[in-house]
């Protein structure tokens, strides 16, 4: 197992410094971002580390709930910003991500894959919520631009007596698919192109590769479910925002 302390982190920070020097030599104007980003990552992660230590030690249900709620609200707010062409992006994102992540977490508890412990719930909820957030944001972006750019096609279909659902079906499907593309690519290439983060982390921490693989598979399937649900719900709810009860395109 690798020995990791602040000294090792400081040594690794030299790599960030090297990146800064290289970009400075080549006059790529990113030095401020590298410097600020590196310090910010350090502060954020150390703070989260202490917070997690505290929560794990306290085993307080309320602290776990608060942590998950904060993650969900911040994630929904971020994804909601992608709803440029319709209203209620935050609410839709909150529902889509909430259902996707929490239903998956509940299933994992029900199937006894994990137990009700802060050290399982919080990291897994974080992974589920961040992946759901990306799926939701991408779905929002895709459905908004597709419907705006294909107004003529949508209104042609409506003019031929199609329902709003039929008129927008193709764009709904494309939006769900776009939201899922990252997890689908992950499933295709996992182990071939890159070793995923959770698995790499476990191996570096001294776990056997096979144990790490099994955990990674659990994580992969878990993410697939959460992302699918979030993409389906966000696209479905977002499409509805473009039509009214009279089958009129109001986007």
């Amino acid at each position: 197992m690798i020995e990791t302390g602040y000294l090792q982190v400081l040594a690794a920070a030299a790599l960030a410094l090297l990146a800064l020097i290289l970009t400075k030599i080549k006059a790529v104007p990113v030095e401020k971002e590298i410097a600020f980003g590196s310090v910010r990552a350090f502060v954020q992660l150390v703070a989260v580390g202490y917070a997690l230590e505290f929560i794990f030690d306290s085993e307080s249900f309320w602290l776990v709930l608060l942590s998950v709620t904060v993650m969900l609200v911040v994630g929904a707010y971020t994804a909601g910003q992608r709803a440029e062409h319709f209203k209620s992006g935050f609410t839709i994102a909150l529902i889509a991500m909430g259902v996707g992540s929490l239903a998956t977490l509940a299933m994992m508890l029900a199937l006894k894959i994990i137990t009700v412990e802060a050290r399982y719930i919080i990291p897994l909820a974080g992974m589920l919520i961040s992946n759901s957030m990306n799926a939701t944001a991408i779905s929002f972006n895709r459905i908004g631009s597709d419907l705006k750019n294909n107004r003529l096609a949508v209104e042609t279909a409506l003019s031929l007596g199609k329902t709003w659902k039929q008129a927008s079906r193709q764009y709904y499907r494309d939006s769900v698919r776009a939201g899922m593309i990252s997890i689908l690519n992950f499933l295709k290439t996992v182990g071939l192109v890159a070793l995923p983060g959770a698995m790499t982390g476990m191996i570096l921490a001294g776990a056997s590769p096979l144990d790490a693989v099994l955990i990674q598979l659990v994580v992969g399937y878990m993410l697939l479910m959460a992302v699918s649900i979030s993409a389906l719900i966000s696209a479905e709810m977002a499409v509805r925002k473009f039509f009214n009860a009279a089958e009129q395109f109001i986007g």
Partner: protein
Amino acid sequence: MSCNETLILRSRELSREISKNGSKIKTVDAVTFDFNKGVVYNIVGPSGAGKSSFLRLLNRLDEATGGEVLYYDKKLQDYPPTELRRKISMLFQTPYLFPGTVRDNLQFCCPGKSVIDPDFHLKRVGLSADYADRDAADLSVGEKQRVAIARSLFLEPDVLLLDEPTSALDPTSSRKIEELILSLADELCLTVLIVTHNPGQALRLGGRALLLVKGRLIETGETSEVLTNPTSELGRKYLSRELE
């Protein structure tokens, strides 16, 4: 088919108000008019007169904010929108054909349930039967517009709403579409409302004309009367501008 010019569509004080840059604008302002079966109506007027906006209210692509439209004595709102739009079908300035063949487009309304007879459905819009299996993307704009008309006719509508259907076409193709419109109105007893910015086209189509200015119906009557001898000051202004 005999066509006895019975009343089919009535617009009563029809209005639509929209918000633009914080202020309210009436795109259609209290338009009252009766449309009969089998007649071609030219909707004319300057840019921004509300011609297309008026058309969109007649099959509920947009919702009126005032007044009403009656289709066979029933309010448009009394019909399910999907059913209504099959009977009052709208075609746009740029014809949109869905990916696939011409046949796929013709049976777009009811895939799997409908049988296309290219000899009938395509020939009546002036296209040969072998167009049925051609890729829609390979057609010229004029051919696309014909297929779009054939696709609408497949629904057996009572009213065709055409929003500047020839604006993207060359003069020869435009004339062919005009001839097609006239023959369809006559043979199928179809009511055709056509938005045009071209007084010459309106005169060739004949029928009746509605002159809209700033959303208001300024003048109506036989197309030749409205466009050659307008009675209102606004009508005369519009015509003099167009003739310039």
